[in-house]
């Protein structure tokens, strides 16, 4: 019985991230539009987009290979699995030990690996430009992310997210310099990973400035729907990650009552909303960078993360 309940909660989490991901993106778009004094699309527009794309026919380039067709599903599945492993409203889920934080980072790395390959599959120069820039961004963002994971793991003594969240929620962590550095670095990485302004513009189709959109330029129909969905999920994943590590309050621990789960979900949605507003504010306030300024931006994130980790290592002897 307990097993079935645990499985049900795990399943609920998987469904929850799937349902909330487009809403979060829609929310951010809405807030951004309102900040610009535009009406903006409705909150549920991303759902409509997805459904419309799914029902459309796929137009496939003549020389697209099986890899091109398999990639959307792989990317979607890997992102979904990664998102489902992050504590959103509850910690200690049935399968939360399947992959720790390092593995989640690597899972996201594999989605990018396949997307970059898919960008090169058709053999247009746009795909190449997107892929080559994406791997350049990743080559800085990924080590930064891993160093952030190191910092968190050193403070919490674990790379298991449930444990990290529990330790961060306990009062004996306190304010720490290296935590602050990790938070800033994590936000910078999250912005780069989700192709947000100032690194990339999710709304652009201006050829020479786009990175993520250039990679997926040849996709259409249900394939594009899968990739878009994966992008929504990824944004949700990073927001959940930041909120579960740095704002771990309101997370439901194992074997709580049904009411507390409902409360947990409500708190979680509140966190999402706050993060969404902050993201929209940030994106509205800042201009997009040139592509070759991005390495400086991410290099700063990398250095911050490294500094945080070093501080932890060095001050550990106190």
């Amino acid at each position, binding site marked *: 019985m307990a097993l079935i309940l645990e499985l049900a909660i795990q399943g609920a989490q998987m469904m929850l991230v799937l349902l909330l991901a487009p809403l979060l993106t829609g929310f951010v778009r809405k807030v951004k539009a309102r900040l610009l004094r535009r009406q903006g699309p409705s909150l549920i527009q991303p759902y409509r987009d997805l459904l419309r794309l799914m029902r459309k026919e796929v137009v496939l380039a003549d020389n697209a290979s099986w890899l091109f067709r398999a990639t959307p599903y792989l990317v979607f599945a890997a992102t979904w699995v990664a998102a489902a492993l992050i504590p959103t409203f509850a910690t200690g889920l049935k399968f939360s030990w399947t992959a720790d934080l390092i593995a989640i980072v690597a899972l996201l790395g594999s989605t990018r690996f396949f997307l970059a390959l898919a960008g090169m599959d058709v053999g247009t120069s746009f795909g190449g430009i997107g892929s080559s820039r994406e791997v350049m961004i990743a080559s800085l963002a990924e080590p930064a992310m891993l160093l952030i994971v190191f910092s968190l793991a050193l403070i919490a003594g674990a790379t298991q997210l449930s444990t990290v969240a529990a330790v961060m929620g306990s009062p004996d962590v306190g*304010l720490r*310099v290296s935590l602050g550095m990790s938070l800033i670095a994590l936000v910078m990485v999250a912005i780069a990973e989700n192709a947000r302004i100032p690194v990339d513009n999710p709304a652009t189709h201006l050829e020479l400035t786009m990175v993520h959109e250039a990679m997926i330029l040849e996709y259409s129909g249900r394939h594009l729907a899968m990739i878009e969905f994966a992008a929504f999920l990824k944004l949700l994943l990073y927001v959940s990650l930041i909120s579960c590590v740095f704002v771990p309050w309101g997370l439901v621990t194992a074997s709580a009552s049904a009411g507390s789960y409902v409360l947990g979900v409500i708190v979680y949605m509140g966190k999402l909303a706050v993060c969404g507003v902050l993201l929209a504010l940030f994106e509205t306030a800042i201009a997009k960078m040139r592509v070759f300024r991005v390495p400086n931006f991410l290099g700063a994130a990398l250095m911050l993360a490294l500094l945080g980790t070093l501080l932890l290592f060095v001050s550990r002897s106190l």
Partner: protein
Amino acid sequence: MHGLTFDIAHLLAGGLVLVSFMMLYQDRLFALINVFALHAVVLALSVAWQAYIQDAHHLYVTAAIALVFKAIVIPVGLHRIIQRLGIHRDIETAVGIGPTMLAGIGLVTLSMVLMLRVTPEADPLAREDLAFALSIILLGLLVMVTRRNAVSQVVGFMSLENGLVLAATGAKGMPLVVEISVAFSILIAFIVIGVFLFRIRERFDSVDIGALDDYRGERR
């Protein structure tokens, strides 16, 4: 004494290091000066917090001096100088940002290791604060070393001085008189350098201090 109050002091000191790093990363003059203003604001907060927890009222004066002079007067002055010199669009990096940041990390590590080694019996958090102060000083020097432009060297110099103030307030020493005289000496230095800048500018049509080397015939 320990707990949240110390955590906040510590966080502010760490924040100061962080802002020093941001200074390394800026390659535009206006951005650099804005970051310097932020540096001074964080310093003022940090000093004020020290004043609060040490119950030392003269430190409030120090904080106010930092806030008024370093966060407002000097940045505004520098802004004006830059505009009058017409160099606000200059981008100047003598050394690339990546190596500079790496060197910065090395310096911070060095000061941490050094401070933690030479003061084994002191209070742990105070030790780390001292280490932070030393790293701010070293980072300020690094800014001075890696920049070509005289204005950014001034900024580096003043951020270095901020590190000194942080060290002094953390160590519960430094009488107010010394404090004020240091602050004024900085102000004088700022004015002298400002005048100096215009002189260089008049003579060489540039504030790149490489021009001075050329004049002395030392460059290559």
